[in-house]
């Protein structure tokens, strides 16, 4: 487990999501990266059920339940700006039992699927983000495996990302800011995916608002 940066890459002008993904992966292969199977990160949204909202008189918090194929035995429960819980995979069954308190917003299920690449000590995952039937964006995850302190290797990570993402290289992830010298954990990666998914969901809402 190393230090990871998750970023969104915009769809290239005049290209489809699929074509942009192919452009990215071709650059990686030219660099010398080797294909190593596939990956998947998914995220389900839970609303706090109506009964609990009225009794406490506050708007319901959203809870996200996520999975990552890199950690097949774990399940991640996250609140926005809140704690990240790492549980066993059967946490999903528990959520079904708690449906009186948390209701699954099934239409909000979002996931990123794609190919996993290895280059030297880096792991790169280029994924297509889909919500329901439609592709909505592209995610790029870059992990530098030998290092455990996020701020130690940020410059190095950035230089690597520049080599295949060019001017779409992201800024420093907000989770790095709070880490200081502590050890980076898988939960930090899931927070980044949650933020990315939230951003992509909002991007989809913009044109809807424009029509009105």
């Amino acid at each position, binding site marked *: *487990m*190393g230090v990871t940066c998750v970023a969104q890459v915009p769809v290239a002008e005049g290209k489809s999501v699929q074509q942009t993904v192919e452009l990215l992966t071709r650059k990686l292969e030219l660099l*010398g990266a080797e294909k190593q199977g596939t990956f998947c990160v998914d995220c389900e949204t839970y609303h706090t059920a109506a009964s609990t909202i009225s009794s406490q008189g506050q708007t319901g918090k959203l809870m996200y339940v996520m999975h990552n194929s890199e950690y097949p035995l774990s399940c991640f429960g996250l609140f926005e700006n809140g704690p990240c819980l790492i549980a066993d995979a059967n946490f999903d069954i528990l959520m079904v039992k708690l449906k009186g308190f948390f209701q699954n917003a099934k239409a909000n299920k979002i996931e990123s699927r794609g190919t996993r690449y290895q*280059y*030297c*000590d*880096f792991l790169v995952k280029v994924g297509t983000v889909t919500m329901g039937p439609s592709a909505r964006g592209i995610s790029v995850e870059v992990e*530098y*495996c*030998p*290092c*455990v*302190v996020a701020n*130690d*290797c940020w*410059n*190095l990570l950035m*230089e*690597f990302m520049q*080599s295949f993402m060019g001017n779409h290289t992201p800024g420093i992830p907000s989770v790095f800011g709070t880490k200081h*010298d502590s*050890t980076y954990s898988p939960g930090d990666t899931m927070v980044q995916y949650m933020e990315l998914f939230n951003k992509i969901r909002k991007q989809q809402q913009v044109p809807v608002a424009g029509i009105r």
Partner: protein
Amino acid sequence: MAEGVLSPGVNLEAFSQAIAAIQALRSSVTRVFDCLKDGMRNKETLEGREKGFVAAFQESLHSVSRDLGELERLSNLVGKPSENHPLHNSGLLSLDPVQDKTPLYSQLLQAYKWSNKLQYHAGLASGLLNQQSLKRSANQMGVSAKRRPKAQPTTLVLPPQYVDDVINRIDRMFPEMSIQLSRPNGTSAMLLVTLGKVLKVIVVMRSLFIDRTIVKGYSENVYTEDGKLDIWSKSNYQVFQKVTDHATTALLHYQLPQMPDVVVRSFMTWLRSYIKLFQAPCQRCGKFLQDGLPPTWRDFRTLEAFHDTCRQ
């Protein structure tokens, strides 16, 4: 062949007799305890019972002392084979019956003699060179030479306590570096050096000489399944495999046969510069990465960071 090796010290005939004597001694000792366990047997009078018991007990004790005497006599005939081996257990290699095919033992003896001779000559040469040294670096040398007027001819036999002290002093010198010393295999020390949250180094010592180092990631496992330090397997990450190679080069570079403690200290000082392994750009090309690797080389003198291909 085996007999030929054994025969100067060992009488095989006496050996097998001695084994039989041990068996006899064991059974007579067992009889003593059996007799004690059974106690007094049923006899008509109390006096008769006591007499019978004492007689039986006496007889079994006698047979113990007789068997013991026999064993002692035989053990003098057997001789002392194992203590003659100068190389301790490796001397057992000489028992290999197919000497012609695997001449390991004679090669080992040759290598041992050769390395001893080399050590001795290197010591003499170094002493001479120190006396004749040029003024450029002579001051430093002179001072330490005075402090240690006569360096030991062979530093392979330093007391463990001295090694502990040297390592402890180095441990206290660098706050971001922690050194754990253990001796799982006899007198040779093994160190587990943890450098910040960057890397771990396993250092295998022979007296105060560093024999082998393996560099691994901070998050990597450095123990085998039975909880011992794993001195054989390499790191899973290319960056630490490269640093391991450079550390091995550094061991060859830092050499000062008269002052092994200075060598260990220099090596650790050099190693400490890897605290910025992921943070320091290359001093030549200014970049962080080359072929996917950060600058893994540290200059022996200036401790500056370079890519493997950017040094020189």
